[in-house]
Each structure stands twice: as structure tokens, then as C-alpha cells.
């Protein structure tokens, strides 16, 4: 069964032209400026632009690794097959006031609802993946849609981008012009000289040129694979639209420019550190924090993930390491 076959609870269109949605005890509505989320013990309001940017990542990343906080109140926790939708669960004040609420859903059910909401609430001209200066407005009454933008397929190389039969390179012809902030990035390709019969194995590509042509921000894509070790580089501009709560160690390698990370305690949101990463820097994000990045100029970030299928069980059993290295 695909998510398009799963029934979604959709209400009447409101006076602004948008549908309302219900998922368990949660309801979702939007007006010209805001997303309104309600649950049995409370309600919350967010800028609809911020909400759609966060929703886009949650959908595109299949709920990602661990927690996707839309802000300090709303978010999802991935249990790999089922997903918690929560309000205030990782907010110290909501917890102490006992106003937090969460419900668990089959992953396909919540995905179907989120996809339907994203499709209905994203207007023509607004791209939730784009940098602020590269997209139209999310606000106003309903005007068309942007299904092409919200249904992009995530790049997932099997060995390496550019290997025959694997993910292709980007070019003007594939609809990937060089981004305005990477106009100075060299576009030369490596010199590849295979002997006859080895054309499929002697392979290389210009990763920096490939990234300079990315049409999305804050969207890690798999470009190379060493068994379960996944290189997921991404280009970053402005603010990461979610606050990522780790359930496993995650590594960053700053390939170009500079990103500032605000790091908080995963459970309470209490500040723990600021991490400033410049070109060449390498840092781990521990498994018990949440983090949000700020990128003044479009930057190339290599996100390195361990996609081992054994990790969800280790995480569920509390056996996954909290820190990358003891020294």
C-alpha cells in the first residue's frame, strides 16, 4: 500500500481556501499567515512559512533519524515503522505543567496526512526547500499549488554519484544551474582514464561542482556509500527549518564557508553549546542533543550518517552510544 491509498481525514475548505486536517486527537488548520495546531490539552500557532518548511523536511526525510522539532513545541519522533506526533513533549515548561501530549501513528498514516497537508497548503510560487531569496511567498489566500517542488525525489546514490547506472551528475541541461552564491566554484571534472573493460569501475566526479548546482537547502542527499556509511552532503543558507533531535551520533564536515550551530539538551531544550564550524572543521553531534544551524552564506556541509539497520533496535534498547568517541 502506498501513502496515496491511505484515507486522510480532510475537513471543509475554510474561507481562505485551505483544507483542515485531523490525525488522531490533533487537528491542523491554516489561514493567510499561520498554521494552527490543536490537541486535547492545548493549541499552538506557527508562521505558516516556518511550518511548511519543517513539514517539507519531515516528509522528504521520511521522519529522519530521531526527532524533527518543528519548533520548541510541535514535532515528530521516528520509531522506524511508527512515529510519535507530539506537542510540548520535549519542552521543559510544557512537561512540568503537564500540558504535553503525544500520539503514536503508523508511519504510513502520518506520512499520508502530512503529504496531503503539504500539497494543499503550499501555494504556487512557494518552494519550502528554497532559500528565502529564491522563492515566492508562502502567505496569503490559497493560489494554486507547487506539487513539483513538494514531491521532489531525494538523491540516494547506491555507490557514488556519476558511476554508470547510479545517480546522474547535475548540469544546466538537468535543470540545475549554478547557485548565485557558488558562482566562483570550479566546474572542472576529474580526468578519468579507464582501460578498456573497466569503464564502470574507474569513476570520479566533482562533488563541489555537484553541490554548487543544488536547488535546495538543508536537504541532505546520499552521494556515496561505504556499506552502511552514507555521505549526505547538503547546501545550507539561512536557518535549518527544523531543530533536529538526535537519536544517534551524527557527524558534520564543513566543506566550505561557515555555519553556527545552537545545541540544546534533547529532552528539555536547555542550551548546552554553540558550535562554530569553518571550512575544514569536523564535529560530532551527540545522541542526546538537538541542534539548529545558521548559515550566513550558502555553505557546503557534509553530513555523515550511519544507516545501519541494527541501530533502531540499539536505540530502542538504550544501547546506542551517546557520544561518538571516548578519549
Amino acid at each position, binding site marked *: 500500500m502506498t501513502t496515496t491509498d491511505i484515507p486522510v481525514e480532510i475537513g471543509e475548505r475554510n474561507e481562505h481556501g485551505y483544507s483542515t486536517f485531523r490525525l488522531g486527537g490533533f487537528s491542523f488548520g491554516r489561514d493567510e499567515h499561520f498554521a494552527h495546531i490543536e490537541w486535547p490539552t492545548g493549541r499552538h500557532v506557527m508562521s505558516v512559512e516556518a511550518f511548511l518548511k519543517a513539514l517539507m523536511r519531515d516528509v522528504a526525510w521520511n521522519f529522519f533519524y530521531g526527532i524533527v522539532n518543528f519548533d520548541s513545541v510541535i514535532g515528530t519522533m521516528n520509531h522506524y515503522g511508527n512515529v510519535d506526533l507530539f506537542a510540548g513533549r520535549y519542552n521543559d515548561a510544557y512537561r512540568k505543567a503537564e500540558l504535553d501530549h503525544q500520539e503514536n501513528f503508523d508511519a504510513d498514516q502520518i506520512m499520508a496526512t502530512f503529504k496531503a497537508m503539504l500539497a494543499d497548503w503550499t501555494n504556487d510560487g512557494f518552494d519550502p526547500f528554497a532559500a528565502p531569496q529564491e522563492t515566492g511567498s508562502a502567505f496569503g489566500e490559497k493560489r494554486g499549488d507547487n506539487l513539483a517542488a513538494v514531491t521532489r525525489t531525494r538523491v540516494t546514490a547506491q555507490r557514488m554519484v556519476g558511476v554508470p547506472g547510479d545517480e546522474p551528475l547535475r548540469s544546466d541541461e538537468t535543470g540545475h544551474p549554478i547557485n548565485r*552564491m557558488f558562482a566562483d566554484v570550479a566546474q572542472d571534472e576529474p580526468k578519468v582514464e579507464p582501460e578498456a573493460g573497466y569503464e564502470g*569501475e574507474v569513476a570520479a566526479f566533482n562533488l563541489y561542482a555537484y553541490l554548487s548546482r543544488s536547488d535546495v537547502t538543508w536537504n541532505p542527499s546520499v552521494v*556515496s556509500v561505504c556499506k552502511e556509511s552514507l555521505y549526505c552532503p547538503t547546501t545550507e543558507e539561512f536557518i535549518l527549518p527544523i531543530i533536529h533531535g538526535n537519536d544517534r551520533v551524527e557527524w558534520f564536515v564543513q566543506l566550505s564557508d561557515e555555519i553556527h550551530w545552537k545545541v540544546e539538551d534533547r529532552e528539555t531544550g536547555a542550551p548546552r553549546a554553540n558550535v562554530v564550524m569553518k571550512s*575544514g572543521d569536523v564535529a560530532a553531534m551527540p545522541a542526546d542533543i538537538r541542534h539548529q544551524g545558521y548559515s550566513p552564506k550558502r555553505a557546503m556541509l557534509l553530513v555523515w550518517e550511519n544507516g545501519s539497520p541494527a541501530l533502531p533496535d540499539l536505540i530502542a534498547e538504550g544501547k546506542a552510544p551517546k557520544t561518538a568517541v571516548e578519549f
Partner: protein
Amino acid sequence: MATYTTAFASLARYDKGGVEVINDDPKNYVFSNMFDVASAARPWEKVAVAKNMQYVLEVIRAEGTSEWRAAPHDELALVVDGEVVVELLDPAEPQVDPGAQGSVTVAGEPAGTPMGRITAGRGHMALLPAGRCYRFRAEQPGVILLQTIDGPDTVYRWADICQTA
């Protein structure tokens, strides 16, 4: 219209950021810098700068000609500074245990069929295919970031390369 300069650090020019602690131990972030590590490394030394269970990222200072190596799985070499030539060879006899992890040294000049070569500059990534032999050559000092698995020649010196306070 604004013009932008993309900042790529190098062996000759790098500027580290860092961890500004509020309520944490900076060692939790295992913070280092690839060019800082390569500056202090011996040629072709494989220094781990990131580790996730058995998987590692190794910084390699490319200078001169490396030994031949082989791994039972794909590895990926990203050149982050300089120019590196990668020679690939299809060995006449298997050079690595298929059940092992990480790369091993191949003694001497292995017999086999040349597969070709790759000349890679900054930002170029080369596939080092599983079971094949490879060696690197760099006329000038450069830096490779290798996506691989912990092996017998992986060097760990976290306390020397990472921010500790």
C-alpha cells in the same frame, strides 16, 4: 547584484572554528580540523577524524607516492586540497580477505591488470572499488578525506587533534 566568495580552506590557509561551551564537555563534539590534522601528519598516514561505530573518516596527507592498498568494500576518496593521481589495478590474486573491514597494505608491486587512473583536484571524489588495488600519487602536499571502515592502519589520536577545553 552581490558577488560572493566561497571559502575553501587548505593546508596553506585554514581558520578553525570551535565549541563554545554553555553546559557541556567540549570533548563530546570531537571537534577537529582536517587541514590542521594533515599539517601534523606523516605522508599517507590514515588519521581518523570521525568515527561512527566501525565506520571512520580518515584524513590522509597526500605527498609523494603511497603504497598499494586494497579493501573488501568500496571506499571513497575526496580530495579536499591539492591534486592526487589514483592508480587502479585488478589484482591477479585476491589481496584482501572478503570478510575483513578497512583497507590493508598490499606488499610490493601486485601482479594484475591496470584498470586505469584518475587525476583528481580539490572537490573531486574518486571511487576505490571493492577488491581492487589502488595507490595515490601527489607531486605537492595535498589532503584526502577517505570514507572507509576502521582497519589495521587507522590511526587514532583524538586527544591530540580535538578540542578538549
